């Protein structure tokens, strides 16, 4: 039998192809069941008006039992949004991507949650420990253990 991640991602992809993605979110590529890319923008009157970000999802064979590794892409054409939970290397500190992940969540629901996180942002700033974290961060954000605490947005 195909791996659990392939079975589930196939279903999610079918759903995305049939029902489309939520407003402001576009599937850029899903060539395999390992890495998917989305573009994400926050519509309406927010601090990120006019900005388009690129999200990368990486899945291991145990998805959705294990969480996807999700980060903003930082390259020549893309930057990570300036947000108190987003590091300049694109890593995101959000409990739903860590120990609050559950198989009830999906690629689409993660996109919507991140969109909502940006939409509700009150001040554009980096996390206070950005430089220290980014200097030594592992490539895969799942290898970082985050301490989740009171939200200060």
């Amino acid at each position, binding site marked *: 039998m195909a791996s659990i991640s392939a079975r589930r991602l196939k279903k999610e992809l079918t759903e995305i192809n049939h029902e489309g993605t939520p407003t402001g979110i576009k599937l850029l590529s899903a060539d395999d069941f390992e890495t998917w890319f989305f573009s994400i923008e926050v519509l309406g*009157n927010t601090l990120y008006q006019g900005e388009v970000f690129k999200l990368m999802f990486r899945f291991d064979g145990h998805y959705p039992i294990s969480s996807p590794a999700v980060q903003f892409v930082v390259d020549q054409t893309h930057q990570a949004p300036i947000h108190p939970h987003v590091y300049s290397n694109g890593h995101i500190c959000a409990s739903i991507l860590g120990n609050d992940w*559950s*198989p009830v969540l999906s690629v*689409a*629901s993660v996109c919507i949650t991140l969109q*909502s996180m940006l939409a509700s942002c009150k001040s554009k700033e980096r996390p206070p420990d950005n430089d220290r974290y980014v200097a*030594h961060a*592992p490539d895969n954000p799942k290898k970082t253990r985050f301490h989740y605490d009171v939200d200060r947005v």
Partner: protein
Amino acid sequence: MNRPPTSGPPPEAPRLKSTGLPNDEPQAQLPSQNHPGVSGPPTDFMGGHPILPEDMDIRDLPSNQLYEMNQNLMAESVSTRPLIDQLTPMEVLRAEYENGSRTFVSQIDYLMNKGYRHIWRARGDGDCFYRSLAYAFVLNMLDAPQAEREIVVATALSQLQSCKPMLSQAGFEPIAYDMFYEAFEAVIQSVVSATEEYGLLTSDSLLRIFQDANNSNEIVAFLRLLTSAQIRLNPDEYAAFIIDMEPTQFCNNHVEPLGKEADHIQVSALADAMQIRVQIAYLDGHKANEVDFIDVGNKNSKEPLLLLYRPGHYDILSRKVM
């Protein structure tokens, strides 16, 4: 046993407030919260910061060491014990307490004298209750006399089927539970009829299925969703036992994610949802020379599932033999 305290927020920790925010961004999209289900509206979550060593400046740490530190932190919460270990004599457990608590030893002796001679140990990964319960559930069917097995399995399958509407009523999308439901169903079916994946179930193959992370965790995930649905659909019954948060938030944070331990509320919710009777032997050091058995769920069921509780952990207790 318990995950280290750093692995999860305390239940009373404040959450990202994204409902009831001042409405100063009329055009911004802030969909409603706390609705479960794949592709549904977003879920509440907390932000935070990466865990850095407190007593040293992270800048002094070479990146390979930092990486190693991360790896160690991740590994320490995962034991090397099989997800469900083979049948183990109670004497093995007793030996572990002989240099420690005399009360525990006296309680283990009590169980042994009562005829409870073996346990199947579950890995202490936060899923031990769900995994133990599922294992005991299938084992009970396997142990049923040949003549009754068909009916026992048919009853279990129809009970399981009747849970399906509950899951969608609770707001879960089929995509979120179908695979897990099918995984559990297939194991139960194989008790009486050989399936392509498992053949005809034996106690050995049951153990192998539960030791396989994929099979085992799919079943755990299913039981977690069932527990969550039961609480979401009957919040008034369980709200009194949930401190400082709404039942839906409790389900989001403490029931649905794998690795989150079960307290009494999850235990009774799952027993209620599956309409099963669970008897839990409390090996908790509170009483010397005696062990309390707590009866949960459907009291009319004649063959209860037997679990052994030690503070923060569940294992499967084998049936009495005299």
